[in-house]
């Protein structure tokens, strides 16, 4: 018995020693499954800095973890509207671009620049201040929203390509028998309805709210859900659903892994990215709590390396923000490895850098507006 206790004690001490013997660390606050393990290994090998990752599932959690300051994070990866909020509340440090030489070697994609410009515009409208967000943030991944559709329905693909949003929202004119699903996030529902109306999705007024309600009611949604949407379209139980392009690619890559070809999957279900559409962008930012500024800048610099960024994108279904990383991905088009070539093809098809469109990142609306929008969407659901 004593030997057993001794053995356990030695094991505990050994783990304790191992975990605190390493050198400098980078405390990273990230989304789950959002950083390729190979990238972590490469970074740790190159700089001798250990990455300690904490995972959170929402921007609001990122925010509360930084504000509460129980752990001093060196780097965080929040989305667009949360960056706006963090800058507004002075939670972020300005980046030292002299420590990020790779920034001069890459060009952000046009869509990324549009998103930053749009963020600056919404901030100006709300607070009257002009903020250059590239001072605080370097893009990590971005992505569009689109309409995942069941390609087994005759004519749906052609109709979407020709009439866009109308096919999705105007259920009385187009495909009245088709089932439609909406993301179960009230602000997303409101924003898409405004885009269909030709308005800026970040605007708010009682009139817009009423019009959005009418639009959402006329769409006769048969489903309000999150992750279930993509799986239901995939299985053929739902005909159209508003979702992240990354949601579609996620299912696509799983099917490719199962040995199906891209054409086979597309014949079953595909995604149409309308114009204009909603986008999101996740950014690397340094919170004021950061203790290892050097490591944080090194990590940002490392990720901007096109090869590394492309490697990171291999395990994540979103779009890379720089043209150079995009070119690296596209260079795999003729790869022997069918997974890599399909991956490159998917990027070329769904995240093409030459794609022109108007992109709206969603801003964080004041809580009274969110309350009204939530109540409006509840009313739409209750009346269905």
């Amino acid at each position: 018995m004593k030997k057993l206790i001794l053995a356990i004690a030695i094991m505990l001490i050994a783990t304790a020693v191992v975990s605190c013997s390493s050198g400098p660390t980078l405390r990273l606050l990230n989304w789950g499954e959002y950083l390729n393990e190979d990238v972590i290994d490469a970074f740790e090998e190159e700089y001798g800095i250990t990455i300690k990752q904490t995972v959170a599932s929402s921007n609001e959690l990122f925010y509360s973890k930084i504000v509460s300051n129980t752990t001093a994070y060196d780097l965080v990866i929040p989305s667009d509207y949360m960056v706006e909020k963090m800058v507004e509340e002075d939670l972020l440090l300005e980046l030292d671009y002299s420590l990020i030489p790779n920034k001069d070697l890459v060009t952000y994609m046009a869509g990324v620049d549009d998103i930053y410009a749009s963020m600056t515009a919404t901030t100006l409208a709300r607070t009257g201040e002009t903020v250059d967000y590239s001072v605080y943030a370097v893009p990590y991944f971005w992505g569009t929203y689109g309409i995942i559709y069941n390609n087994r329905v005759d004519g749906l693909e052609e109709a979407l390509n020709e009439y866009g949003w109308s096919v999705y929202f105007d259920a009385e004119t187009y495909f009245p028998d088709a089932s439609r699903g909406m993301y179960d996030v009230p602000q997303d529902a409101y924003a898409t309805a405004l885009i269909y109306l030709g308005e800026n999705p970040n605007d708010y007024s009682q009139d817009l709210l009423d019009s959005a309600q009418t639009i959402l009611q006329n769409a006769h949604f048969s489903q309000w859900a999150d992750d279930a949407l993509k799986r239901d379209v995939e299985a053929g139980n739902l005909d159209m659903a508003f979702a992240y392009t990354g949601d579609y690619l996620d299912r696509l890559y799983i099917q490719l892994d199962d040995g199906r070809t891209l054409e086979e999957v597309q014949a079953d279900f595909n995604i149409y990215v309308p114009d204009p559409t909603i986008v999101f962008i996740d950014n690397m930012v340094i919170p004021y709590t950061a203790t290892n500024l050097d490591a944080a800048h090194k990590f940002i610099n490392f990720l901007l390396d096109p090869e590394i960024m492309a490697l990171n994108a291999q395990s994540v279904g979103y779009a890379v923000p720089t043209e150079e990383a995009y070119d690296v991905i596209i260079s795999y088009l003729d790869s022997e490895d069918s997974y890599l070539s399909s991956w490159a093809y998917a990027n070329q098809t769904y995240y093409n850098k030459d794609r022109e469109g108007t992109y709206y990142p969603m801003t964080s609306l004041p809580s009274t507006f969110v309350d009204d929008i939530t109540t409006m969407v509840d009313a739409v659901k209750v009346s269905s």
Partner: protein
Amino acid sequence: MNSLYRRLAIPYQVWLVVLVFLPIMAVVLIAVSNLTTANFNLSDISFSLAHWNDLVENQSQVDGEYFNSYLTAFRNSFMYASITTIVSFIFGYFLAYQIKQSRIKNKFIILTIIILPMWSNLILRSEALRNIMQENNIIESILGFNILPSFAGTSYAVIIGLLLTYMPFMILPVYTALEKIDDALGEASLDLGLTPFKSFWKVTFPLSLKGVVSGSIMVFLPTFAGFAVPKILSNGTILLIGNVIETKFTYKILNIGSLLAMLVLFVILGSILILTRFDKEGETLL
């Protein structure tokens, strides 16, 4: 030794205070004051019933008709909880009665089979149920044809899901109550000239009423306050009050969410009062 026992009781008491009592106090406080996540400063707190006004005056217009969506959600909750309770009473009571009457020696096995589904996760079970209620489902892909019509997203789907989930809560207390009835009473009533049918209604049923009441409450309350099963099986198109509260808290609309939660709490407390009138010792709750 006694002091050790007392100390062992402390962890759960702390737990109750920290995770049950304090949160309920916080909910009550937030429901009647101006506290929010952005403004959680007890020093400039002010009390008002403004949220109650928001609740009552909330009007939505659909096709020219005005309605209050909170009221509709409350009505949905009452309706689904009542239907589930009544149907589980009808089927659950007679199942419990059959088990009690049957000659099988090991009745424990049968009761175990009844609670067996509860060993798997509620969300997982509901998702699986939703899957087989859809047009293209796992059974269809194995057999090549559907054994059920596709009705996921309808109110029938929700009621079936609620019944499958909560019926065991009716069967078990009813069975316990039936088991406690002395067989001699039934035999005596037959000797004194009652038909078996009358004997059941005049002797057995009144004596088992305690079990029925606590079973009904154990079905009614989780159905009334729950949100996961209706959300999954209605495809998010049917809102119970639990769903509304969940949305309010998700989007940090704490005041109205707390007020609604308080109203649900009143319904629960009211039900427990009814329970204690019928079942003073609370024995059938076990």
